[in-house]
């Protein structure tokens, strides 16, 4: 196994070298005669240069062939189906597809890995943010999934929140359809960027009005880092998988409350 990977690596490496040298050939050809070829016998110099480059390419090709012959073919055939041919697609607009395919494989792989780790950790440390006093009958009734709800439900929730708090301007965007990211800004002072996972609040970050809308970077300012902390606390406190709508709503109330306290503090 170790050896296989080593060989695969060296094969990939030699392919890389080959590609880069082929690129150099084309580059040189596209440049044509350059100033540094001097004046006398510049054609000859150019041809010599080209010949040299081509020889390198030849050598690299030999290397590639050698390293490929060293590889042990995998036992079972890959079941990529017709998608294998995507890599050989020549039309430009479809070349991107293969890359996307590979990427999605990569991501699903990562997700699998992370969820396995997360599963282990969660199994070892059971922490309950949830009310466990529900009777079995009730639980059966509310056993619907919170993170896979139709978009309209979330849409309704957001518009109702928007109507509820007049001081808060809410703008929504949906990088992934069922999981909107809303940006709730208050005045021209601060804004909270809230990411939903279905009906659950997944992530909250509070930033200054002038800062970027990036969900992953913290605010530059201490004030807003503190407010973010408070919001996180509120988010955890009100989390309830059984009544997600209520959770979101009460979170928003607290969020607005924090806002107003904050503004009071500002304006004395």
């Amino acid at each position, binding site marked *: 196994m170790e050896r296989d990977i080593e060989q695969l690596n060296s094969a990939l490496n030699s392919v890389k070298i080959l590609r880069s040298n082929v690129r150099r050939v084309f580059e040189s050809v596209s440049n044509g005669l350059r100033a540094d070829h001097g004046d006398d016998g510049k054609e000859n110099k150019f041809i010599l240069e080209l010949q040299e480059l081509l020889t390198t390419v030849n050598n690299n090709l030999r290397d590639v062939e050698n390293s490929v012959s060293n590889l042990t073919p995998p036992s079972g055939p890959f079941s990529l189906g017709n998608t294998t041919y995507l890599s050989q697609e020549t039309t430009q607009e479809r070349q991107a597809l293969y890359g996307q395919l590979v990427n999605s494989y990569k991501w699903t792989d990562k997700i699998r890995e992370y969820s396995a780790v997360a599963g282990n950790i969660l199994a070892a440390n059971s922490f309950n943010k949830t009310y466990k006093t529900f009777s079995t009958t009730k639980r059966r009734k509310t056993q619907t999934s919170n993170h896979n709800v139709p978009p309209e439900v979330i849409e309704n929730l957001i518009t109702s929140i928007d109507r509820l708090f007049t001081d808060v301007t809410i703008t929504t965007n949906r990088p992934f359809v069922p999981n909107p990211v809303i940006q709730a800004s208050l005045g*021209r002072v601060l804004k909270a960027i809230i990411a939903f996972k279905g009906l659950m609040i997944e992530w909250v970050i509070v930033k200054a009005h*002038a800062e970027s809308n990036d969900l992953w970077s913290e605010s530059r300012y201490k004030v807003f880092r503190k407010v973010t902390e408070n919001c996180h606390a509120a988010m955890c406190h009100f989390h309830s998988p059984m009544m997600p709508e209520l959770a979101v709503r009460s979170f928003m109330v607290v969020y607005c409350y924090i806002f107003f306290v904050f503004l009071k503090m500002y*304006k004395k």
Partner: protein
Amino acid sequence: MGVTILTQFPTENRTGPQTIDVLSKRIMALGAIQQGQFLVDCETYTSVQQLGPQRTVHVLHNSEQPATVFSLLETGTKTIPLATDGLFDLLMMKMSSFYTSKKQTKAESKGPRYEIGDFCVKLGTVTVSSNFKGILVEVEYRPCVVPAMCWDLLKEFLQGFLGLSGPTNPPAYLQNRMQEIYSPIDTIHQYLEHFTLFRKSPVEANVN
């Protein structure tokens, strides 16, 4: 970039360095950390006669925005701001036959720069053509961009460490812009106002 308030601090009968010393001790006591030095300078050019009615161009640099040159053009009736790349200075040299500078008017404010939480405090010694003129204290509250929202906070902070000499009202320039979004050029406007006053004032007696 947050809201900035610029205010003059009276030297009374101390020298410039002594005043800076007093102020920096106070701000350090509040828990501020010094973060380098700062410099704001201003060069003034006036139009030559052949160009018609006289106009004035003030070219300012602020070390907080080191790659930018700020210019303010005064026509007598209005002031037009302009922000450009650093090469604007080169262009002013090209314009030397239309706009000339008087060497006596070069004003600058420089000194230590402190950070304390989300505030940034700068203690500037002002010189006009290398004559000491006074002390300017700049306080910036960075998370907020609307002056009206944080004026009270800034006032409290300023009075907290300047004592009674802290401002009680927003700077004149900001007074009718309290609801607008603050930008670096507004700081430049405030500096120019103070520099213009300093230029008119007589040279202070306690030159060090």
